């Protein structure tokens, strides 16, 4: 756990005037969570991070790690317990990738074999082939590859706390998305306590359990992504997160979350239409999905078809053209709905069984309600 208490950093400017780069910051990052420091350039994000591992001494205030005041820990052992990815990566050009990654373990006196194995393990965590890359020099790798190395170098000695200063800054959007996904996957296994700097709201939404929005050295809002998007504390936060923030909230909800929250209502081919109409009437539905014995969707019946008809669902079956996976977010679902000119689509579970639906109406009311929808994350051990 990282706790910042009334943390301040004052620099003296060239003209002799004091300047508060970090101004009374209070922040708690619980163990195993990712907290994103989000804000425009020069708002004090890097300064805050550097005060945590004492690359910069705070002017006043406290930094506690797992309840212990860092002012009492010598800087070398403090820093070895904090993995830090500096802004602009900072790989050592005079060392091979392996040597870069193994700097800290070697200082800690690990033997060669253990170092080698650890290096290979870390490389495979970020999907880089150890045989191909371990003996290269940083300049022989792409920007994205270097960034991956920067991250695993910080993880090398398995420090419980990880500070990352714009770790995924200098790569193209596709690569960035991929590195972010790898990182999330890694974080789910490792459960580090992470503080990550970004000035990209999409990255913050994607990675942050919590987002602390900075402005001129102060935290103006610290909350989950959904709350920041749904209820920005002030005009600054609102404009920083973007005027399409409402649509961005769709990124936070996955089709599976929506389906799980619904009763799973279905009919089978031999269900009488009158019975299907009854179900729709009771639950205020306009259509009902028809499934086979396994629960896999076969088609759907419309309420207006069922209302006046006798017979069974098989007689009035409409085909289902498109379905959603549980891990697709609502923004993707909405995009597919528009693309295929549909008002709703079924959500299938991992085995292809019908689990619920997402409709344009649902999306509209979710966005309207402003209710926050907690994201499901694997709980840290």
């Amino acid at each position, binding site marked *: 756990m990282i706790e910042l208490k009334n943390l301040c950093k004052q620099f003296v400017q060239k003209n002799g005037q004091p300047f508060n780069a970090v101004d009374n910051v209070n922040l708690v990052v619980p163990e195993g969570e990712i907290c994103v420091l989000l804000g425009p350039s020069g708002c004090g994000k890097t300064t805050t991070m550097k005060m945590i*591992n004492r*690359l910069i001494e705070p002017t006043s205030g406290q930094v506690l790690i797992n309840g212990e005041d860092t002012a009492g820990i010598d*800087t*070398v*052992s*403090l*820093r*070895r317990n904090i993995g*830090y990815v*500096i802004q*602009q990566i*900072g*790989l*050592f*050009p*005079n*060392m091979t990738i392996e040597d870069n990654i193994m*700097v*800290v373990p070697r*200082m800690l006196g690990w033997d060669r074999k253990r170092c080698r194995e650890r290096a290979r393990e870390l490389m495979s965590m970020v999907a880089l082939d150890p045989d191909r890359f371990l003996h290269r*020099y940083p*300049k*022989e790798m792409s920007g994205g590859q270097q960034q991956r190395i920067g991250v695993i*170098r*910080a993880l090398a000695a398995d420090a419980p706390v990880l500070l990352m200063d714009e770790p995924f800054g200098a790569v193209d959007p596709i690569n960035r998305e991929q590195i972010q996904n790898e990182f999330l996957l890694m974080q789910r296994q490792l459960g580090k306590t992470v503080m990550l700097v970004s000035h990209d709201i999409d990255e913050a939404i994607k990675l942050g359990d919590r987002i602390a929005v900075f402005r001129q050295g102060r935290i103006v809002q610290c909350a989950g992504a959904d709350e920041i998007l749904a209820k920005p504390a002030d005009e600054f936060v609102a404009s920083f997160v973007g005027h399409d923030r409402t649509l961005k909230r769709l990124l936070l909800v996955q089709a599976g979350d929506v389906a799980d929250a619904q009763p799973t209502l279905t009919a089978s081919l031999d269900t009488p239409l009158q019975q299907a109409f009854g179900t729709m009437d009771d639950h205020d539905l306009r259509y009902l999905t028809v499934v086979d014995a396994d629960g896999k969707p076969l088609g759907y019946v419309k309420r207006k078809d069922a209302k006046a008809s006798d017979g069974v669902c098989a007689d009035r079956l409409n085909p289902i053209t498109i379905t959603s996976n549980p891990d697709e977010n609502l923004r993707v679902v909405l995009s597919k709905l528009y693309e295929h000119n549909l008002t709703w689509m079924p959500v299938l579970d991992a085995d292809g069984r019908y689990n619920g639906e997402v409709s344009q109406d649902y999306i509209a009311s979710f966005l309207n309600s402003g209710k926050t929808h907690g994201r499901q994350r694997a709980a840290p051990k």
Partner: protein
Amino acid sequence: MDSWIELLHTAWPFLIRGAGYTVFFALIAMVLGLALGFAVALVRIARVPVLAQAAAVYVSAMRGTPLLVQIFVIYYGLPSVGIEFEPVTAGILALTLNVAAYLSESMRGAIAGVSRNQWLAGYSLGLNWWQTMRHVIAPQALRLAVPSLSNSLISLIKDTSLVSVITVTELMLATKEVIAQTFQPLPLYLAAAAIYWVLSALFERVQRAVEKKLELAHRH
């Protein structure tokens, strides 16, 4: 022309012995100068109080006065305050102190030329000042410094000729002694010049080999 060849034939052993001294002086002053220069650069980079100021004065004085004067002060001047050296020792001392000042400036510039970010990266991994210097900064600085270090060291080879003034029979004085007996300055001075040239050229080769080796560690 025939007489020149005959002359050089007889002078050769003296010149070679003198050249041997020259190489000996240059190598010793080079090794000691690199060590002292590095120490001086470190003291100044780390801003060690008092020592750093002393080092700055030393560098300025060495670079601001002629080597010849420095040699005279050490060999002829210091005995008057009770410090006496053999000519060889005085020569090595003067050359070392002089070249170290130049080398330290090259090293300081190169160390300052390594990006601040590299220090930050070293510290953030929990390396201390010395570890960061040794494993991260110095290797990168060395690469930046090689051309200017080589310049100083080539000058050093040539500057050894100045210690002839304190009766050290290195190449220059050996040549003069032969000339005193043969009265043939032109061929003998030309021969001495040729030997200096060959020595410098050999050193340049070494420099290129070193550069190439360092380059390998930073391909592209």
